């Protein structure tokens, strides 16, 4: 029961921070993607299915607060988590600071690419204006670089805070005694 309440509290806190707090900050800080960094952090520190469950609830909730057609956020998050999962399982071997940063960077790229193509399609259907799409791409490219940087800094911050209170990231060495 306590565990469920704790999860609900974490969900609420992260969503509130993402939906109401971060967007009102001045640019470029408003571009930070708290939900994405949180999900990657969970999938690296804990089991992948934890982040998948959180991702499903958060994606659904974010779609309620998005003007894009239903499912845009949910699908983008799910595709991103799938790619991160595959890379984590097949290419990376340990839970380290560099793994966390690498996966956060990868997730930011994949998430933005999926959302960008979705947005291009959405704008093109509505305006049929190719010039607008070029300008939009330049703007989104600029935003993406800021978001990448902010997400990496936030992930690093989370790592240091978590590392100071938990042993999940600490390496375990075999102590060899000399006789």
């Amino acid at each position: 029961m306590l565990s469920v309440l704790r999860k609900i509290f974490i969900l609420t806190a992260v969503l509130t921070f993402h939906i109401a707090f971060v967007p009102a900050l001045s640019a470029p800080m408003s571009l930070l993607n708290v939900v994405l960094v949180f999900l990657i952090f969970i999938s690296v520190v804990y089991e992948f299915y934890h982040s998948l469950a959180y991702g499903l609830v958060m994606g659904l909730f974010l779609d309620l607060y998005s003007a894009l057609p239903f499912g845009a956020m949910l699908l983008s998050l799910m595709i991103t988590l799938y790619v991160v999962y595959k890379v984590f399982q097949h290419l990376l071997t340990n839970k380290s600071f560099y793994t966390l940063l690498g996966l956060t960077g990868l997730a930011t790229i994949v998430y933005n690419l999926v959302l960008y193509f979705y947005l291009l399609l959405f704008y093109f259907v509505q305006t049929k204006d190719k010039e607008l799409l070029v300008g939009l791409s330049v703007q989104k490219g600029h935003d993406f670089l800021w978001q990448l940087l902010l997400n990496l800094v936030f992930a690093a911050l989370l790592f240091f805070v978590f590392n100071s209170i938990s042993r999940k990231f600490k390496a375990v060495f075999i102590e060899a005694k000399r006789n």
Partner: protein
Amino acid sequence: MLYLRKSSRLIILTVVIVGLLFFLHFIGVLRPIENFAVWSSKSIFHSVYKASNFVSERFLDFKSKQDLIKENQELNQRINKLLKDKSSCLVAEDENEFLRQQLDFVQDREFDFEIARVIGKNTDKTQNVLIIDKGGKSGLEVGLPVLAEQGNMIGKIIKVRENSAFVLLLNDDLSRVAVKIENKSRTMGLMEGEFGLGMKIKLIPQIEEVKKEDLVVTSGLEAKVPGNLIIGSVHEVSSEPERLFKTASVKSQVDFSKIFLVNVIKNEIK
């Protein structure tokens, strides 16, 4: 082998859940849960949104020295202009009052409106959209104009839920509003947003005389948008002789990043 089976199972399960969520959303089964989620979260979101604006304004609003000097110069110029305007206004006010009484000219327009609180911004960080705490239940519809606290139009409603709605700000690329410039010839045009940074009126014929500081208002040509709602003023006019049309950039008096309360104009009662 066992691991592969486990991961495949997980992926299939996720696809099934996502598919199910889509299906339940589109047939409307999820609607009560969605409405409850929005209803229960909007108060806390509004408070956090206000707190965030406070933090941003107080501690995170970085401006360079050059920006501050430029802003100061602009404000000084504006004060001087306003002082001149005020003195001429005082004379005009008496004259105007007299003429009004004489001509029995009463502009009697009333609007049916709905005050709403801003509870956040678009979560996908791609469009310039505000989320407000009133929706279809309060009679809001897609296409209705939204005014800021100062009475300036800031956008139009693009999506409505039962107890929340999405306002597309005028500076978004998808925003299109039929406007009128309050100059001698009452130039009409279509104002478009520019990458969330500003607004432009394109396709103004070269023969039209448009000046800086000319007032820009809604033209009233759109079904749900009444005429003469103030949008802003002309900030810059770019005109090249070899081109058929000129472009005017429009500046709003409202800071689109600091809006807490809005006024949705539902319809005009005459």
